[in-house]
């Protein structure tokens, strides 16, 4: 089974294509599409892998060769990814990347440094104009992105430099923190210099009066081997150097955030205007989009569930027959269940790369516990008298299992399968975070863009699929569970 998945992973690694990834925030997705459009203009075959995950995940995907290029920022590279190397400037950074088999383009033009922002009305009421002023208000609630909290030049440095005694600092997703700020649950958030929020009149960007936030210039990172594999694509992509200024980037971010354009359309507009490259954004109709996501989702659920059934039913039988082995099996399956789904997905990436294979393995592991447990429970709760009759009548252990025990346990087993399948449909939405597609793609893009309609475009079909799966298993129950077990005993 695992072998089959590994093969699947190998097939997904199309050798000749240029694969462009991005992080999950809007700007990164737009940039990756611009880069992809330029690479495609050279005639190369391009695979787009937008919104793969956070910095670490995308960086590792580049290192392991899952993707060939993605947009990154010099400050993030120096202060976060390669912080231990204490690189003094971008020259040293380029050398360090070279040793890892990576190349860095010249800056694309705009910088994306960090800033702090408050609601204008609140800031004015408190008399806050620059970051120094925050030291006088230790009770303000900070909602900062995890990346800023973790970076050497991020929150720890900021706190020390400005003597901030903030009591309530929370690590939050950037977009959610911004929402919290507007609604008043959070007082201070971190912003990027090109965030669409910068243009929001309700927001006051606090002045970095001690000049602490470093320059954070956008660059394109790519694998050195791409220069041999697709030299013309690299040449074409590098045309982007120095061509995007901050206003252009902000405009694109705003266009996408306000729902005016998709990331793909914003990118296509940009390359058309700047390079005269025609990159028709393939606009799929709602039905086409739904159908594609449904196929992807069903593939994730179907393969992982089928594998789980094949493995978990025998495991459940073993657990029922050997109580001590059963404790070990159920214990292990329970431990797997406690691993947060996102963490499990991320664990899979070094082993299986990105895309469907790691998502399928993670879903497979999650489906084990409900099935194993119900098979074991179903088998161990068969009445003693029935069990004794089956032995006394002269059936061998295998025939007993097949003719008596499994049919008797079938209602419990089917209930376990149903639980596993419904959970599986829900959890499979997370597959979108590692490039496996499915309904999660719409949900997470919708969350990122604050686009409620797009969230529903993923959430409603996912809920319907869960209901359909439930209905399917209810139907299967009337086929599979012997009629005699569904009757109530009479006197």
């Amino acid at each position: 089974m695992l072998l089959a998945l590994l093969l699947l992973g190998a097939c997904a690694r199309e050798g000749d294509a240029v694969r462009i990834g991005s992080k999950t925030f809007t700007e990164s997705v737009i940039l990756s599409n611009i880069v992809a459009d330029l690479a495609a203009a050279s005639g190369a075959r391009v695979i787009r892998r937008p919104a793969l995950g956070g910095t670490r995940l995308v960086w590792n995907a580049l290192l392991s060769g899952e993707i060939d290029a993605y947009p990154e920022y010099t400050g993030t590279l120096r202060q976060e990814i390669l912080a231990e190397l204490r690189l003094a400037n971008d020259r040293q950074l380029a050398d360090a990347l070279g040793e890892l088999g990576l190349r860095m383009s010249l800056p694309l033009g705009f910088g994306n440094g960090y800033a702090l922002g408050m609601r204008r009305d609140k800031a004015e009421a408190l008399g806050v104009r620059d970051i120094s002023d925050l030291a006088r208000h230790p009770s303000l609630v900070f909602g900062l992105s995890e990346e800023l909290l973790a970076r050497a030049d991020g929150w720890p440095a900021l706190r020390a430099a400005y003597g901030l005694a903030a009591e309530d600092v929370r690590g939050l997703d950037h977009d959610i923190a911004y929402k919290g700020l507007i609604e008043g649950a959070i007082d201070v958030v971190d912003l990027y210099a090109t965030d669409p929020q910068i243009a929001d009149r309700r927001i006051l960007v606090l002045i970095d009066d001690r000049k602490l936030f470093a320059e954070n210039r956008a660059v394109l990172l790519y694998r050195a081997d791409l220069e041999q594999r697709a030299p013309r694509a690299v040449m074409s992509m590098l045309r982007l150097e120095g061509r995007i200024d901050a206003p252009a980037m902000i405009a694109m971010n705003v266009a996408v955030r306000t729902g005016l354009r998709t990331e793909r359309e914003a990118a296509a507009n940009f390359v058309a205007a700047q390079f005269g490259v025609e990159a028709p954004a393939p606009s799929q109709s709602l039905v086409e989009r739904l159908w594609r996501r449904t196929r992807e989702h069903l593939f994730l659920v179907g393969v992982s569930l089928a594998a789980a059934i094949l493995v978990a039913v025998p495991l459940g039988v073993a657990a029922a027959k050997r109580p001590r082995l059963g404790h070990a099996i159920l214990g292990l399956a329970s431990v797997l269940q406690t691993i947060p789904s996102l963490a499990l997905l991320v664990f899979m990436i070094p082993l299986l790369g990105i895309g469907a294979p790691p998502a399928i393995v993670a879903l497979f592991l999650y489906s084990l516990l409900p099935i194993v447990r119900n098979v074991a429970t179903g088998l161990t709760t068969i009445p003693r008298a029935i069990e004794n009759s089956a032995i006394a009548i002269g059936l061998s252990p295998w025939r007993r299992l097949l003719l008596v025990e499994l049919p008797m346990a079938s209602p419990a087993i089917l209930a376990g399968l149903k639980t596993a399948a419904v959970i599986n449909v829900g959890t499979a939405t997370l597959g979108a975070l590692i490039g496996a597609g499915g309904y999660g793609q719409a949900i997470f893009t919708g969350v990122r863009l604050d686009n409620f309609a797009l969230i529903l475009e993923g959430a409603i079909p996912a809920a319907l699929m869960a209901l359909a799966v439930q209905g399917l298993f209810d139907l299967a129950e009337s086929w599979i569970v012997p009629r005699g077990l569904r009757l109530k005993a009479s006197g």
Partner: protein
Amino acid sequence: MIRLEHVSKCFGGARVVDDVTLTIEPARATALIGPSGSGKSTLLSMIVGLTTPDDGEIEVARHLLTPLSAEKLRRLMGYVIQEGGLFPHLTARRNIELMARETGWPAERRAARLEELLQLTRFPAEALERFPAELSGGQRQRVALMRALMLDPEILLMDEPLGALDPLIRADLQDDLAAIFARLRKTVVIVTHDLAEAGFFAERIVLMNRGRIVQQGRFADFVERPAEEFVTRFVRAGVRRLSDLPLPPGGAR
């Protein structure tokens, strides 16, 4: 013939069966009786190989019963328990035919045997397609009996087969069982806690108490020559009659 030599069984420190030596004669009915917890059901379950004795030997039809030989020897024995132990997911017919199918009997042979059994147990053929849950308690026991007899075993073991039935159905089935035993002349071991029932079915009665055999013989022996005071008490409790009860004159006689 069934032979038990110095058979003992402990459950959690309690000696449930204590050094029992017993020979069960072929082609006749033997009743194992005794109060609850006397070890009679455990003894029967050791004979069918569901429970392994801690000590002693059991021989069934001249074969030593071991965990290895048990699966083969069970085909020489039919076993009926209190609630019938019918498989609820199979129809009456499938329950009865299960082992015949497993051993590869052709359909005609199965049908012929089933016809014999239906007559023997006076079970309505149209109820064969019903599931156990759709049968009455008495019908369920008749199906269990047919299942036990399907392969025509030499030995029939019954553990309180009538225990869960109400009195009228019970009396009905007692009559039928007695007739069946008389006709088949099989080695029958029937466990019951009811002395009258034991006397009704069996030529030979084995009385157990606290894991040991207290007395064995004909019904009359227990009344006329009780081996110890316990036997007298057990007999007296068992033969208490309706006529002993104070009834108003002109009552239900």
